């Protein structure tokens, strides 16, 4: 692939909003999971606050947009603001959103309207916002993006699927830039499933490197990137390699960011790498376990290649490899460098 330059990032997670908030978390300002009520029990969740969107949209407008799409709008706004590229032709700007589960809360709300009130009274507003690409629609309308728009859904591999498409569009010259975002939200229904897949007892402390135990705490958020084809002598962080599949050809050298999600089922797939002499790190405990987590890792790597002191000397200089082993035997690998 041809390298993709990251011109701006829009990050919304439990750590806060923006690159500075993520840097602060990396520096030790660890986010604390909220306790969410789930059928009378408390469930820790790394929630993301979309309140900063209030500076751009009225309360009335926000009432009509669900949390999932608000996460997307905030992430998209932040990425474009950080890139500071007002001259971008919005008809030549592509929009790609990846999501593991989509707007689950609104889909549940739609069911509620039919179950409680009857089929005749199912909510049209909830239905149109429950469609997977509703967030992309909101972003394209608000930011007037009229280039190609794509939403992809590949569970925890949504981020690498979306990157693959961004790389293709830029390589084909279909667009000048791609605004790419990975978005997922917490919902009660997901919390219920989470509890079951955690063996009924959800951990209160997330220890993603305890590979033999499930300590996962759910997270949510949005990670957006404004991507452009990298130029010669480009000083922007770059995505320099992408791999997706059952067999990843991982370079023998270079530090690794591991997107360990806190589940014992996938944890064992990282054991060999952690036991090796390679420099490794994991930051999932800053944003929680969700399909967005590996995209946040890309943001960490992008920040670290620009500011070598951020992750300490072990990660300074050269490329950083971000690796995610998925649930269905598929893995994703992204090489980040300058």
């Amino acid at each position, binding site marked *: 692939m041809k390298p993709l330059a990251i011109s701006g990032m829009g990050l919304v997670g439990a750590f806060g909003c923006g690159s500075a908030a993520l840097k602060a978390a990396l520096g030790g300002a660890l986010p604390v999971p909220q306790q969410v009520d789930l059928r009378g029990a408390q469930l820790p969740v790394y929630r993301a606050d979309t309140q900063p969107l209030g500076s751009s949209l009225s309360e009335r407008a926000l009432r009509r947009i669900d949390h999932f799409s608000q996460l997307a709008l905030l992430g998209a706004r932040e990425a474009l603001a950080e890139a500071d590229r007002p001259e971008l032709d919005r008809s030549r700007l592509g929009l790609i959103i990846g999501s593991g589960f989509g707007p689950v809360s609104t889909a549940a709300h739609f069911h509620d309207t039919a179950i409680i009130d009857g089929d005749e009274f199912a909510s049209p507003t909830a239905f149109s916002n*429950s469609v997977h690409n509703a967030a992309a629609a909101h972003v394209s309308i608000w930011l007037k993006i*009229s280039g190609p728009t794509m*939403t*992809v859904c590949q569970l925890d591999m949504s981020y690498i699927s979306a990157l693959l498409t961004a790389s293709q569009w830029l390589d084909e010259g279909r667009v000048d830039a791609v605004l790419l975002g990975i978005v997922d939200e917490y919902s009660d229904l997901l919390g219920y*499933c989470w509890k079951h897949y955690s063996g009924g007892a959800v951990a209160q402390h997330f220890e993603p490197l305890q590979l033999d135990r499930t300590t996962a705490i759910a997270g949510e958020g949005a990670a957006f990137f404004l991507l452009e084809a990298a130029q010669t002598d480009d000083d922007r962080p770059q995505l320099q390699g992408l791999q997706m599949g059952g067999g990843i050809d991982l370079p023998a050298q270079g530090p690794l960011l591991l997107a360990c999600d806190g589940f014992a089922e996938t944890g064992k797939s990282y054991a060999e790498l952690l036991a090796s002499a390679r420099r490794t790190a994991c930051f999932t405990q800053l944003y929680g376990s969700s399909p967005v987590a590996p995209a946040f890792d890309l943001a960490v790597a992008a920040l670290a290649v620009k500011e070598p002191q951020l992750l300490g000397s072990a990660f300074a200089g050269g490329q950083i490899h971000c690796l995610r082993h998925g649930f269905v035997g598929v893995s994703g690998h992204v090489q980040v460098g300058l």
Partner: protein
Amino acid sequence: MQAPVAITGAGCLCAAGMDLRSAFAAMLQGERQPQPPQLFSTSHEEVSPVFEIYQPLPAPETDLTLLRTTRLAISATLEALADAGLSAELLRGLKVGVCIGTTVGSAMNNEDFYREYQAGKDPDMAQIDRYLRSNPATAIARLLQLDGPCQVVVNACSSGTDAIGLAAGWIRQGLCDVVITGGADELCRTTYNGFSSLRITSPQPCRPFDVNRRGLNLGEGSGVLILESSTSLQRRGKSPRAFVRGYGSASDAYHLTAPHPDGIGLKQAINEALTGAGIAAQELAFINAHGTGTPDNDRVESRVLAELMPGIPFGSTKCFTGHTLGAAGGIEAALTLCCLEQGRMPANVGFSEPDSQLPATPVTSVTSLTKRIALSQSLAFGGNNAALIIALEER
């Protein structure tokens, strides 16, 4: 210009037929039988007929615990692979990707599970396990033991067309030797209630582009194409059936569910596809229109067709299949291929009286085609628009 990408196989099942050949034959005969839904119950006073598949799905070896959408996708895939002469053993020696469009197949919206959950019960997690194992692209890759890129496109009703456009890029970029691509969607209560709530379903068999059109009929099915690199074709000594010559897509950036009244995004998508194919609109034999039968869609589409492609015959195959949502682009691409090969397109059944607001009207009888290039287009919720150009010749 976009380099042409070979189509070596096609498969389709829908209410019109359980395979591509029988579906297309039924359309040429003008046969259609939308009926009240039988897969699920509904308490709507006015029931909109649907285009449901009543026969058991083929491919009995397919895992019956997968979602119906995924089993539809697998059935069409197996037909398309057989058509292409590609066995599972042959595929294992190649870099094979899977790119499938869907709407229902991506949604964790199992209503039975949710009802139990809301009632305070502990629903069986097998239903969630089933959803997690049923990502259509991943399930196809798992079944055939493929190791290439996997992607599920969820662009609502343009998903299938967009999936094929992306897949063609995978071949052009050298990412894959072969890509299995198209769309799949099942009928279910959720989408039925959703479209009913928007008041865009018709209580009668749909009548695309007619003055008395009252909306769409939902349908289900899957359409899959096999795209293949020239290197792989040469190695196998295989001739293509046709080519993907152009693809374009664009957003209206206008409204969550309604198309832009001037069809801004649709025009941009069509122009990108024509430019990519390196052809002029007048070289098209026909257009397989989105043609849902809703007042808004047909008005916008008719205006754009009249402006950009005046005089080119067009019609909607949804009058035989219903609106199959994420499957539509895949099914319509496969049917477009059949039309070109047989030199005929089916009538736009249901159309009888023109609408004075619609400047272009569809074909009303089986129409002979003399040219060898066609366009299939899709409009979608979220303002997505996608256009695909299929041709019998490479240049």
